[in-house]
């Protein structure tokens, strides 16, 4: 009896406190994500960099040279003006947009095709799938360095193969036209990205009940018709999620552009995220890096909201 009563009381206590359940995660989120986020917004209004690391006692004072502390800029939006009027900004923005689309569309397309092929009657599916998750399962900073070696003008295997079929060597990474280096990082990044899409779409295809196809064939629908009226409508939600999430991830993807070309030559392959990283860790202009991050957030907020709305992620089931 007492045992039972005790259990009830535990039950009652826990029942009344969903906040207690989310508290640990929320504390982590606040300190590791929301605080850095707010801090980043705050420093966009300051002159913080490697020489001005700590806040001044009088943070609203005019910045004086020789101080090792940072103050709020008299002209509040100085950093935004600096970034947005930077002659490089337009190209970086262009690069980021082209980068995102030229990666997401082929990875989603290739992932879809492979998922369809592997979902059809074909032998050795498991083996093929195993080989094809290698790009995803290998640490990307290792494989990207290999790609960099393969693109090498003199010693790289890609040019060696091209010369086998009598195509002159291509200067992949140091070409003065931006097309070659950009194509190089896009190819490597598609290689990295398609296995994930393939697995997502395989999952979606497998979750379509077989009865639907049977019903469709009884109604006389075959091949293309089945595809149009059964398969496509049922996996469309997954495709949309893959496109949205893929765009956000690709826009924020830093490894490929940074490790293969370092954003160069010039700013040929510099995208938003590598620019933010360089500002922070090469030039140590923390305020400018923060400004790039805030602008990136404003851009990503739109697909982010679409994704949230579309999937109903924050909708409660109750």
């Amino acid at each position, binding site marked *: 009896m007492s045992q039972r009563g005790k*259990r009830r009381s535990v*039950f009652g206590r*826990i029942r009344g406190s*969903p906040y207690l*359940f*989310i508290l*640990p*995660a929320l504390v*982590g989120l606040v*300190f*590791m994500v929301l*605080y*850095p*986020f707010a*801090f980043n917004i705050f420093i966009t209004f300051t002159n913080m960099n490697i020489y001005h690391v700590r806040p001044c006692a009088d943070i609203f004072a005019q910045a004086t040279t020789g101080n090792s502390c940072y103050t709020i800029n008299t002209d509040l939006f100085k950093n935004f003006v600096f970034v947005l009027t930077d002659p490089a900004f337009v190209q970086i923005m262009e690069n980021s947009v082209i980068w995102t689309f030229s990666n997401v569309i082929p990875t989603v397309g290739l992932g879809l095709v*492979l998922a369809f092929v592997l979902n*059809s009657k074909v032998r050795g599916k498991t083996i*093929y799938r195993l080989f*094809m*998750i*290698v*790009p*995803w399962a*290998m*640490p990307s*900073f290792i*494989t990207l360095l*290999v790609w960099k*070696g*393969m693109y090498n003008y003199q*010693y790289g*295997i890609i040019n060696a*193969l091209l010369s086998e079929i009598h195509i002159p060597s291509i200067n992949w990474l140091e070409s003065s036209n931006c097309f070659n280096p950009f194509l190089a990082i896009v190819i490597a990044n598609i*290689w990295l990205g398609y*296995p994930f899409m393939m*697995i*997502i779409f395989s999952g*979606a295809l497998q*979750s379509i009940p077989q009865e639907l196809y049977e019903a469709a064939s009884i109604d006389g629908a075959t091949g293309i018709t089945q595809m149009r009226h059964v398969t496509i409508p049922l996996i469309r*939600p997954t495709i949309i999620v893959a496109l949205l999430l893929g765009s*956000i991830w690709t826009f*924020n993807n830093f490894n490929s552009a940074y490790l293969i070309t370092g954003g160069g030559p010039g700013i040929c392959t510099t995208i938003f*995220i590598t620019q*933010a*990283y360089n500002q*922070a860790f090469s030039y140590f202009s*923390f305020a400018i*890096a*923060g400004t790039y*991050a805030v602008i990136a*957030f404003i851009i*990503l*907020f739109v697909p*982010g909201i679409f994704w*949230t709305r579309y999937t*109903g*992620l924050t*909708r*409660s089931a*109750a």
Partner: protein
Amino acid sequence: MKSRSVTARTVRRVASTIVKHAFLILMALISVYPVLWVIAIAFSPGESLSSPTLAFGIIPVPSTFTLVHFSSILSLTVGNGSNFPLWVRNSALITVSSVLGSVALTLPAGYAFSRRKFRGQQASMFSFLLPTMFPGVVTIIPQFLLFSTLHLVNTFFAVIIPYMVGSLSLSIFIMKSAFDSIPREIDEAAMIDGAGELRIFTRMLLPLTLPSIATVSLWAFMGSWLDWALAHVMLQDNSLWTLPLALYAFLQSNYSYYGSFSAMALVMAVPVFIVFIVFQKYLVTGLTAGSVKG
């Protein structure tokens, strides 16, 4: 007449099978090709990218098979006796703590979001999605300042805590949708039988969500085992290095040690690959949460 159409169909089927396999073999080759280089360099003598020889003019193979790089990374010592076993231990310790921590944060939160209705639920769920839309690399600076105020830089806490939180925005929703997919009638039936909530949670719900817990663990594992950027900032002392930091060091000196680099890269990649094979089925469970319902 009939036999001819049957032959035509057979020919078409055979042709389509050949095309399919040709495509799949090509993609499989492209997928593993860069990794073949890592393997060939790791088992060839010399520290150069071009140590392997090419079979058929394209497939890299070790010029002479040797384990010298593996034995050299085992005997490598940096600073005051920091060595390979120590870095493996550091990496393992950090990764295990991060994975356990991440699951511990995710489970109760996912449960509450799925089974409860409370004030501020929408807002807090949305705030967990924010990190997806924010470039992660720039949060390193405020995190560093925070940890240096707390005197935690150069301790494992400075990486474990961010890793625990790092995958939260994905994993909470993976867990929420896992709990969503379990009918509430199960809870109610157990409640009528007099089981407390804690008991329902541990005995009934938890076993049913194991695939999703595996997915959450996998994402946390990847985030901490492979991370270089955060560890590079937080762990400066070489006795605290993780494997990616040690790996990076091979390419940092004037001369790049690609042989040793590849050997260590393989050692690092093998656990990831094993985890991937074991969890293949669960990899994307709940990733497209909600999308199936439209």
